């Protein structure tokens, strides 16, 4: 019951934050110096065209009214027309978001599957060589932007050792009908297992480049949490009762440390979404980044607002899911009465 209430509460507050984000980004987009219509149309547009554009964008109304109109459209799922692609922004986002999401989700998975055990290993051998090695390596992985890792991985694993493809989501020869936009799902839906393997093969390198700093980050956090857990009486008790060190690490230190680590990993999801822009550029991944950078360079306000909103919404949803997982994992929250 309290888990459910907690979930509702989180949904509500996330919605408020999302409205805040929409205001923030809307006002940023409107306070820029110069006439948005003129900027959008470029210097060669005629005065009439600009006037018409001002009308379409409701730029003649007071800014509060503009925001109100924008919100009422948004509720109906309308983010306006992209000046960059001449299509509804919603359509554009629906086309590009799945590719990015697929990449980010795989990277997030790598972060958990590789980062947590590395951190646990490090804490278990605290002060010994495995710990020192993990600490240096993870510090190194968080010390380079995702695009540097992407370039490095491409050089080594695509050019010098041609193990992985350099660009694209799937082999060119394969034609998979678009269903969800998630290549891994669409290939399976089409019954093309070879296509699925090809898609995975194309995803490994970009997802790994994207997740490297996250792997480092989550390993470091898990290490810190586990060391903190190790100092608690419950661990001393386990040692006093002669449980084996491996068992203590796995059952007594790892599980309680997992909870704060997961929360932070939820927050790290933001970094993944942002860094996806960098990685997508290197791998020519047809995701939000190409679109996002395109609309930013074109000063396409509707599309900029839409892109930021959809990314923030994704981030908030990811955090709600993580929060839900945490409350299920943690008996203290699961069984608490007030649920706050």
């Amino acid at each position, binding site marked *: 019951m309290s888990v459910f209430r907690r979930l509702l509460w989180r949904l509500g507050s996330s919605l408020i934050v999302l409205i805040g984000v929409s205001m923030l980004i809307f006002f940023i987009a409107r306070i820029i110096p110069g006439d948005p219509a003129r900027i959008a149309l470029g210097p060669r547009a005629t005065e009439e065209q600009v006037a018409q554009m001002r009308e379409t964008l409701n730029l003649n109304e007071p800014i509060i009214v503009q925001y109100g109109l924008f919100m009422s459209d948004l509720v109906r799922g309308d983010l306006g027309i992209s000046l960059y692609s001449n299509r509804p922004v919603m359509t554009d986002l629906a086309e590009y978001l799945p590719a990015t999401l697929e990449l980010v989700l795989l990277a997030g998975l790598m972060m958990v599957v590789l980062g947590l055990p590395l951190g646990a290993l490090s804490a278990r051998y605290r*002060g010994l060589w495995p710990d020192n090695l993990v600490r240096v390596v993870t510090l190194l992985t968080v010390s380079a932007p995702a695009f540097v890792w992407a370039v490095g991985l491409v050089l080594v694993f695509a050019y010098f050792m041609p193990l992985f493809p350099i660009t694209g989501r799937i082999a060119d020869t394969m034609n998979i009908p678009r269903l969800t936009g998630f290549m891994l799902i669409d290939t399976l839906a089409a019954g093309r297992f070879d296509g699925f393997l090809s898609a995975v093969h194309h995803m490994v390198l970009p997802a790994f480049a994207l997740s490297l700093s996250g792997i480092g980050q989550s390993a470091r956090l898990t290490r810190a949490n586990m060391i903190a857990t190790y100092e*608690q*009486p*419950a661990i*001393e*008790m*386990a*040692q*006093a*009762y*002669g*449980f*084996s060190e491996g068992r203590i690490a796995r*059952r*007594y230190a790892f*599980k*309680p440390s997992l909870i704060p680590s997961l929360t932070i990993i939820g927050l790290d999801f933001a970094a993944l979404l942002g860094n996806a822009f960098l990685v997508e550029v290197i791998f020519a991944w047809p995701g939000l980044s190409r679109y996002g950078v395109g609309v930013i360079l074109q000063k396409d306000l509707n599309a900029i607002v839409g892109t930021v909103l959809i990314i923030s919404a994704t981030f908030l949803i990811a955090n709600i899911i993580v929060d839900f997982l945490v409350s299920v994992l*943690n*008996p*203290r929250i699961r*069984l608490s009465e007030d649920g706050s």
Partner: protein
Amino acid sequence: MTSTLTLDIKDLRLSFRNWAGKTEVLHGIDLTIAPGERVALVGESGSGKSVTSRIVLGTMQDVRNASVSGQVAFEGTELSTLKPAERRALRGRDMSMIFQDPTSALNPVFKIGELFQEVLKRRHPNISRDAARQKASVILQDVSIDDADRVLNSYSFQLSGGMNQRVMIAMALINEPRLLLADEPGTALDVTVQAQTLALMRDLVDQKGTSVLFISHNLGVVREFADRIYVIYRGNIVERGPTAAIFDAPKHPYTRALLSAMPRLTGGGIPEIEERAPSFDDPMATHGEDA
């Protein structure tokens, strides 16, 4: 003194290395416990009493910047001759420990029943879940817990401090250890609850014939419980003797200070002991028994 001593400590020293150099915290301690005997080690916080119990337990030896010297023999076996794994094999089976704050020592992510099973596996590696619950229920009865089923299905944070303390006593004794280390048991509880649980603990160790090393900063708590008392001050034993003798005729100035600071009644004010007095460093006082 015909049978082997349960615990025989001679000239025990402990020091820590840190960035400032080396600090010695135990300056050569001698302490013995006979089978079935209840011994208390009393001193202020920082006097070295807790680290002594960690050395007996064998966990202090695994701390990287700690160095231990001297002799610690458990039932005739010198601990330093054992490998870490062999020291570990003693813990939870032949010796066991009760902690100061039961609620934080019982792991909050496992139910009490699961913890009991973990502990029982130390002596019976293949014990089934049902057999473990059965054994746990029996010993919980011994510490006056009647609704054992409810307790076994709870997490520690769902139970009261006094309840957790009883659970902890039961857990410490379920494998019939021959030495029980009790580090400030129940100090985190209120006075009446502490007194109740200590009485339960005394009855139980009496019945099972367990030797106890009871560590406390409070002479009053120890009086009802211990056969003999060691008083420790800044890493040295300053007085030792039978409980009655120490209370009737304390010899060492530090012991006298401790006794006079003992609150007679609850709420009798904060005990006050001088931080240091030159006389506290006087040589050890004994009460006639063999050294």
